[in-house]
C-alpha cells in the first residue's frame, strides 16, 4: 500500500530556508503597516496576501464578511482568488475538498450551523490528508436560533482530525492564518483558525500586517504536491474503501501527524516571532508565574479578564489568567507548566458538553492534570452563551468563585436558577415581558384563538371540476374579513414584502393553517423571544430541512386523526421559505414533492440572502450587486442567471406549481386558494412570490409594488401556473401592451441601477435574451398541454 512519505520536522531548517528565500529577492519589504480592522477583515487580508487558489463558501453570520471582503478585493482586481458560492456549507466543504485534492491552496470560512452542516466533510479532508485552512467565527448553534457568539459550534470539531488554532484578537486572526497554513502544509492536515464571532470577528482594532504580499508568500513557501492528482502518467486513487486493519493504520498516521504538529510548534512560533516581532506560544498567560488562582478561558474574554487580574493584583491577590492558542493538538504540557504554581483553577467555557460536568475545555484541562503530580482544585463554569456579554465584573466574580471553597465544582454563570432545579421549568409559561403585568400568563391575553369557525367564512371557495381546482369569490375587499394569522409589531423593515406576501397567501386560505418557517428574515423578525407575531401553530427549522420537517409534522397529524386523538378536519400545512432557503433547502423540498406529501411550499423570493446582509442567492438577477458579487474593475455583479425554481419544482410532477405577485392581488389570492386546495387534498403544492426588500434592493419602500409590477411586465418574473402538468400563462404583458425591457426594471433598484450604463450593455442583453427565451418556452407550453 502506498504511504505518504513522513518528514520529520527540523526547526532550524525552515527558519534558515525562509531567511534564504527572503535574501534572494532583496526588494521584498519586511515592513509592517498598521490597519484598523476587524478579525474578519484581517482573515480576508491574510487570505489575499497568501494568494489562495480557491475559496468554496456559503455565507453565514458572523463569518460572512470574510467572503464579502474577498469578493470586494476581487472586484477591485486585488486578488484572483476563485470564489465559489456553493448552495450550502456541505457543498462548500465539498468544493474545498475537491480543490485541495486538485493541488490548490484552499480557503473557507464558516460559523455555527454552517460548520455543523459541513461537519461530515471535515474528517474526509483530514483522513485523506489534504491541507487547507478554514476560519471559524464561532457562533452558537441552533436551536433555538441565535446569531451571536459562543463556542458550541467549534467544539464539535475537536474529533475531526483538524489542527485548531484559537485567536483571541484580530491581530492573532491574521498571524494564525499565516501560521496555520504553514503548519497544515508541513504536516499535511487541514487547519481551522477559530475566533469569537462578533467580539473578535466584528470589533475593529489596531492591527499590524506585513506590507508586502511577497514577504508573506516567501514565508509560506511554495505548495508541495507529493502525489499530484492530475499527473496522468501516474494515476491515483484517492479515497479507497478500507477494511481493518488498514483503517486503523490510516487513523494512526493521522494521530502521528498531530504529534508532528505538536513537535513543530516551537519552531513555528519562534520563526514567526523572528519575522513579525510578535511572540506566541501554544498558551498565553498573564501573571501566571506566581499565580495561586488562575482563570482559564478562550477568546476575547481573556483580554477582558486581564483587567480583572490587574485589579486583583493591586489588592495583593495572586491572580492570573490563561488562554490557549491551540486546541488541536492540545498543548497539555505547556498548559501544566504555566499552571505549576496554581492552587486553584477555574475553567470557563462558552459552551457545555451537556451532562459531562463542564464545557470541553474544562474537561480537557482536567484530563491534562491527570498527567501531573499537581494537586489543584479545578472548577468549571459555563458562561456567555449566545454572545452574552462578558464584563470585567464577571471575571472578578469567577475569581471569587475559584477562591470560595463552598462554590460548586461545576455551575452555570449568569443564569436565573429555578426554585426547584429538578423541575427544569417544565411547567412555567415564561414571562412575556421583563416587567409586570405580563409575566407568567399562560396564553395570549390579546387575541382570541383563530378557530376554524373564525376563518371559514366562505369568502373564497374552491371546488373540483374535472380533477382541477376552481376558485370562486376571493375579492380583495371581501377577503379582508379573514383574520390575519400574524399580529402586527413584528420587526420587519418598513416596506418589507414578506408580511405582504404572507398575508396575501393566507387571506385566501380559510382552513386552519399550520406553519413552518425555514430560517430567514421572515422567521427572525416575527419570533424574537419572548414575543411572537404568530397567532397560529408555528415551527421553525433550519434552512436545509423545512420541507422534510413539515412532512413529519403533517404525517403525525394524520396519524393522530386516524387514531381518533385529533378531530378529523382539514388543516393546511405550509412551509414558508425565502432568503435563499430554497437554495440550501432545495433537496429537501424536491424530496418532499417527489414523495407527494400533502403540504404547501411557499417561497417568498427576495432575491438574496437578505437575513445575513444580502449575499447573492441563486435567484439574484444576473448583474445585481450584492455583498458577495460586488461591482468593480473585474466584476459586474452576479455572474450567472437566476434560478428557475418553479420549473425545477414542476419537473417533480407535483400537482400544482404557480407564481404570484403582489402587483396582481386578485391573481395571487386565486392561486393561493388553489395551492392550498391541492396541498390539502392532492399532494405537494408550490407557490412562489417575488418579495420586495427595500433595504437590499436599495429602492424606496413605497415604490415596491411598482417595482414588482415592472419585474412581471419585463417577464423577469412571469405569472403562470402548472396544474396537473399543464402550463397556463396567467398574464402576457406583450398582449396587454405592457411589455417593458428588462433594463427599465433594473433601473428601478439601487442594486441593479449600474447595469443601465453602456459598459454593461452586454450583460443586460444576455439577461434579456434569457428572460425572453424562458418566456417563449412558457408561451409554447401554455399553448400546448403536452409540452
Amino acid at each position, binding site marked *: 500500500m502506498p504511504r505518504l512519505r513522513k518528514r520529520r520536522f527540523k526547526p532550524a531548517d525552515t527558519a534558515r530556508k525562509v531567511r534564504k528565500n527572503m535574501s534572494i529577492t532583496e526588494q521584498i519589504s519586511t515592513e509592517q503597516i498598521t490597519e*484598523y480592522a476587524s478579525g474578519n477583515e484581517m482573515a480576508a487580508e491574510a487570505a489575499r496576501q497568501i494568494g489562495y487558489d480557491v475559496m468554496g463558501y456559503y455565507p453565514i453570520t458572523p463569518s460572512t464578511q470574510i467572503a464579502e471582503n474577498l469578493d470586494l478585493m476581487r472586484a477591485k482586481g486585488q486578488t484572483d482568488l476563485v470564489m465559489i458560492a456553493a448552495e450550502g456549507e456541505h457543498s462548500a466543504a465539498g468544493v474545498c475538498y475537491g480543490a485541495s485534492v486538485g493541488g490548490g491552496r484552499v480557503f473557507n470560512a464558516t460559523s455555527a450551523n454552517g460548520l455543523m452542516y459541513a461537519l461530515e466533510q471535515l474528517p474526509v479532508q483530514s483522513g485523506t490528508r489534504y491541507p487547507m485552512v478554514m476560519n471559524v467565527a464561532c457562533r452558537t448553534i441552533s436551536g433555538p436560533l441565535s446569531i451571536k457568539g459562543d463556542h458550541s459550534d467549534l467544539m464539535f470539531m475537536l474529533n475531526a482530525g483538524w489542527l485548531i488554532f484559537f485567536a483571541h484578537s484580530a491581530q492573532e486572526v491574521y498571524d494564525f492564518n499565516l501560521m496555520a497554513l504553514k503548519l497544515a502544509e508541513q504536516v499535511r492536515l487541514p487547519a481551522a483558525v477559530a475566533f469569537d464571532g462578533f467580539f473578535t470577528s466584528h470589533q475593529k482594532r489596531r492591527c499590524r500586517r506585513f506590507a508586502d504580499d511577497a514577504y508573506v508568500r516567501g514565508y509560506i513557501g511554495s505548495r508541495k504536491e507529493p502525489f499530484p492528482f492530475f499527473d496522468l502518467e501516474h494515476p491515483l486513487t484517492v479515497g479507497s474503501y478500507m477494511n481493518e486493519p488498514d483503517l486503523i493504520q490510516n487513523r494512526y498516521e493521522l494521530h502521528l501527524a498531530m504529534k508532528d504538529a505538536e513537535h513543530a510548534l516551537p519552531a513555528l512560533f519562534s520563526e514567526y516571532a523572528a519575522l513579525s516581532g510578535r511572540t506566541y506560544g501554544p498558551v498565553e498567560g498573564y501573571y501566571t508565574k506566581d499565580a495561586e488562582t488562575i482563570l482559564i478561558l478562550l477568546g476575547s474574554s481573556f483580554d477582558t479578564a486581564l483587567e480583572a487580574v490587574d485589579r486583583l493584583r493591586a489588592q495583593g491577590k495572586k491572580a492570573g489568567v490563561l488562554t490557549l492558542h491551540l486546541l488541536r493538538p492540545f498543548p497539555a504540557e505547556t498548559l501544566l507548566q504555566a499552571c505549576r504554581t496554581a492552587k486553584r483553577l477555574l475553567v470557563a467555557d462558552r459552551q457545555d458538553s451537556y451532562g459531562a460536568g463542564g464545557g470541553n475545555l474544562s474537561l480537557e484541562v482536567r484530563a491534562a492534570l491527570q498527567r501531573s503530580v499537581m494537586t489543584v482544585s479545578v472548577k468549571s463554569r459555563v458562561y456567555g452563551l449566545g454572545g452574552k456579554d462578558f464584563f470585567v*465584573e464577571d471575571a472578578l466574580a469567577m475569581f471569587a468563585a475559584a477562591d470560595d471553597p463552598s462554590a460548586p465544582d461545576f455551575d452555570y454563570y449568569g443564569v436565573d436558577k429555578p426554585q426547584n432545579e429538578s423541575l427544569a421549568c417544565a411547567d412555567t409559561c415564561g*414571562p412575556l415581558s421583563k416587567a409586570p403585568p405580563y409575566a407568567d400568563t399562560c396564553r395570549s391575553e390579546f*387575541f382570541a384563538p383563530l378557530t376554524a369557525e373564525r376563518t371559514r367564512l366562505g369568502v373564497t371557495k374552491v371546488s373540483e371540476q374535472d380533477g382541477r381546482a376552481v376558485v370562486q369569490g376571493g375579492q380583495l375587499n371581501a377577503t379582508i374579513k379573514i383574520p390575519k394569522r400574524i399580529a402586527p409589531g*413584528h420587526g420587519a423593515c418598513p416596506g418589507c414584502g414578506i*408580511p405582504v406576501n404572507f398575508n396575501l397567501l393566507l387571506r385566501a386560505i380559510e382552513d386552519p393553517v399550520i406553519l413552518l418557517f425555514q430560517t430567514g428574515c421572515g422567521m427572525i423578525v416575527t419570533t424574537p*423571544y419572548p414575543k411572537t407575531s404568530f397567532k397560529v401553530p408555528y415551527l421553525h427549522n433550519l434552512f436545509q430541512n423545512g420541507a422534510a420537517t413539515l412532512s413529519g409534522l403533517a404525517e403525525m397529524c394524520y396519524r393522530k386523526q386516524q387514531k381518533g386523538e385529533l378531530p378529523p378536519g382539514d388543516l393546511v400545512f405550509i412551509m414558508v421559505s425565502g432568503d435563499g432557503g430554497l437554495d440550501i433547502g432545495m433537496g429537501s423540498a424536491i424530496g418532499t414533492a417527489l414523495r407527494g406529501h400533502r403540504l404547501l411550499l411557499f417561497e417568498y423570493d427576495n432575491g438574496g440572502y437578505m437575513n445575513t*446582509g444580502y449575499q447573492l442567492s441563486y435567484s439574484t438577477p444576473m448583474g445585481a450587486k450584492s455583498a458577495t458579487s460586488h461591482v468593480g474593475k473585474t466584476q459586474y455583479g452576479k455572474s450567472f442567471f437566476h434560478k428557475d425554481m418553479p420549473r425545477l419544482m414542476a419537473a417533480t410532477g407535483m400537482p400544482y406549481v404557480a407564481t404570484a405577485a403582489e402587483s396582481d392581488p386578485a391573481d395571487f389570492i386565486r392561486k393561493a386558494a388553489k395551492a392550498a386546495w391541492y396541498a390539502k387534498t392532492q399532494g405537494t403544492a408550490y407557490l412562489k412570490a417575488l418579495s420586495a426588500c427595500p433595504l437590499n434592493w436599495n429602492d424606496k419602500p413605497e415604490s415596491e409594488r411598482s417595482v414588482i409590477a415592472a419585474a412581471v411586465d419585463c417577464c423577469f418574473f412571469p405569472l403562470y401556473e402548472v396544474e396537473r402538468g399543464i402550463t397556463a400563462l396567467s398574464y402576457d404583458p406583450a398582449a396587454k401592451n405592457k411589455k417593458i425591457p428588462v433594463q427599465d426594471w433594473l433601473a428601478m433598484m439601487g442594486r441593479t441601477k449600474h447595469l443601465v450604463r453602456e459598459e454593461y450593455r452586454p450583460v443586460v442583453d444576455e439577461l434579456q435574451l434569457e428572460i425572453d427565451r424562458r418566456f417563449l418556452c412558457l408561451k409554447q407550453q401554455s399553448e400546448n398541454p403536452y409540452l
Partner: protein
Amino acid sequence: MTGSTKLPLTNDNGDYEIRLESIGGLGANLCGKMLGELGLRYLGLNSASFSSYGSEKTGTPVKAFIRYCDPKKEIRVHSPVISPHLLCIFHDALLADKDVLKGCTKDTVIVLNTSDAQDSAADRLQRLLTKTGICALYTLPAQQIAIETHSRINVVMLGAAAKASGFIPLTAAEEICSETLGRKYPDALAANLAGLRAGYESISRLQAPPDANHTYRHADGRAMAEEHAMAEKHAMAPMPIGGINPHFGSSVINDVSPSRQGYIPVFLQEKCINCGLCDSACPDMVFQFKEGTYRGREMMVNCGLDYYHCKGCLRCVAVCPTHALVKELEAEHPRKEWFLPNQELLRSPDYYEKAGADGYITSESYLTEKRMAGGEV
C-alpha cells in the same frame, strides 16, 4: 501621527468611551467606525469600535461603541460601553427608551439631534438627566443640516461629536471622512464635508437647569458594577421547556413608531372607496376594516389606521387609487385623527414597548457601499 492627543478623561481601565444611540438607516455604524479609526490614525491614540449586533434591518435601534486609550496600552475589554464619556443620540424619538441614557454620569457629554420645532425633546432630556447630572448637553438639528447640505446625518453627527468631545480637531474628522467616503464618490464627498463642518459648528450648549446640582454617581467601577448587576437581574427569567412561546400574537405590544422617518400616511376618509389595496400592500396590518356599508353595499369599510404599528413605509399612499391616503409630516399631525388601535385585540395592552429588538449589523461591505453612493440605507 505626531505625538498622541491627551484624553480629557478615562475610566478605571484607562479608556475614554463613546456610545452612539441611533436607529437603523441613519448610518451610526459607519459614524462609529470613522470615530474609531480617526482615533488611531489622526489622534495618535489606540482605539477600538463596534456596533450592536443583530440582523440587518432599517428602523430598529442601533448602538455603536468607541474606545480610545493611550497608544502604548492595549484595549482589553470587549463588552459594550455602559458608562460613556460622550453619548451621541441620533434621533430624539430614542429618548422614549430610558436605556438610551443608561450609565450617564456627571462626566458624560451628550449630543442630541433634535429639530428646533421639537425643542421639547431637549427639555425632556434635561429633565431626565436632572437626577444624574451631566457634564454638558449639546443639541443640533442634524436632520435639517443633512438635508440642507445634501449630506447624511452620520457625518453631521460626526462633526458634532468631534466638537463636543473637546479634543477631536475638525481636521481629523475631515481627514477620516475623506478617507472613508472620498475616493470613490468625489461629488458626495464635498457635500458630506459640508455637512460635517456644519455639524461641527452648529452644536449649541444648553444651560444646565437651575437645580441640576445633585445626586449623581461617579463613573467608577462600583457604580458600573451596580448598574451591570441590575441589568443582569432584568435580563434573566425562567423559560418554558425548550423555549416554546405560548404568548401568541404578543408582538402586538411592540410600538414600532420609532421606525418612522418623519412621515406618516394621513387618511382622508371621504375619498376612500374601500378597495382594500392599502390593506393588501401594508406589511404591518395597520388598516382597520370593519363590516359596514359603502354606497349602499355591504362590505368591509376602512375605519382608520393603527399608528402604533405603522412604520411609515408609505406603501399604502403609493397604491391608493383615490388619494385617500396621503404622505404628510408627522410633526404636523400631533393628533392623528384616524388613529384606531388594532381591532382584533381582546383588550388594549397595558402598555406598548417601543420598537423591539436590537437593530443589527452583521455585514458591512455592501451597506457601506450603498451609503457612500448616497443610497437610502
